[in-house]
């Protein structure tokens, strides 16, 4: 299992989509491709934009389908970050159709 600190990579206001893309390509997808689990740790992150979260996880969900959410976990998210992640996860699944 790999733990990724979002604070270390994107700061307390996580809004840089280029950083999100790098995390997705370099840290998340290689682990999920191996069938390993990833923990995205939002400890210390005050806010994240929907664009950041979309760039972070939407393509992972598209590539790995529903199992992406079995292998990815989101740690220490405040209420707002939690809701933004849920919005992105929901609309991706709505768009992809039933599992």
């Amino acid at each position, binding site marked *: 299992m790999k733990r990724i600190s979002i604070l270390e990579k994107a700061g307390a206001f996580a809004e*840089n989509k280029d950083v999100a893309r790098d995390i997705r390509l370099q840290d998340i997808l290689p682990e999920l491709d191996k069938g390993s689990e990833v923990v995205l740790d939002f400890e210390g992150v*005050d806010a994240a934009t929907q*664009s950041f979260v979309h*760039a972070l996880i*939407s393509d992972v969900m598209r590539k790995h389908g529903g199992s992406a959410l079995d292998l990815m976990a989101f740690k220490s998210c405040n209420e707002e970050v939690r809701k933004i992640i849920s*919005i992105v996860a929901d609309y991706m699944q*709505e768009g992809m159709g039933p599992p």
Partner: protein
Amino acid sequence: MKIHIPNSAFLGNIDPFIRGFDPSSPETLEITANDKWIAIHPIVLSMLAALGSTLRPEDILCRKLEAKSRHYLVRMGLFKSLGIPSDISIVEHEPAGRFIPITRVRTSDELSRFMAEMIPLLHLEPGQARTIGYIVSELARNVIEHAEAEHGALLCAQYYKKSNSIRIGIADTGVGVKATISRSHAAETDLDAIRLALQPGITGATRREGGTEQNAGAGLFFIKSIASVNRDFFAIYSGSGLFKLLKSTSLKPRLKADPFEDRHSKEGDLPFWRGTAVGADITLDQTAEFSSLLDAVGNTYRAAVRERVKARYKRPRFL
């Protein structure tokens, strides 16, 4: 080009200012202003700076400003951004807590640095700072990623003590909303394109539901939703189209996926703005909890996606 800074131009009454813009002869810019008093929204300053960014300073003519409040233009960095001298003298103040002068953002990293500097400048409560930061980040990233704006995004913001609000303006001279949306969706007019761009899940990057790996088509919908829930103004002007979200009269406004179902005004035959200009007002007293806003945004977003997906279902043929 000719542009006149009127006595008053805020989002509620910005239409005459826009109608007075003359985009002909784009190789020069002449700026005139009301002689008595100037009270303007940051979107006006951002637009002036964006126009100036396309020209050499020697091609910009700014008529002598007589208005008593002309020092405001200096303080907000207008002449500095245009690269032209000004004979207006002011006592410089630290901007902390009051305004963000005209700033140009061209790259993703520049924006991240700007965000880190901007939020402390506004001296806001953490929740309010998050809302403002959210809006600025999404708007500026739109320019960086979609506008093909050689001169970047020109943005500024001002805190208004009397109304306890932050007003934000951002403008670019890129390809405009119609060109970007038309890459994936049919939009006959600038107003059609603006309408699509404000809907959740509609992006010029793809027709596919859920967007691309980098774009969902949700940024403008989120911002319009923040303004709508807070009963604030939000305006977007691109090409010859202007959409303006008006203050809702309802105490608990319902979010709408289609901006034309919101309380709004629109115009489709304005002087052509090559690029996009956006203005937003955020009243801090009534800034709804961002968390409850997200619940409403999530529900509206899911419903809009579900409806679009359903609209594409094949229907059984009954013979």
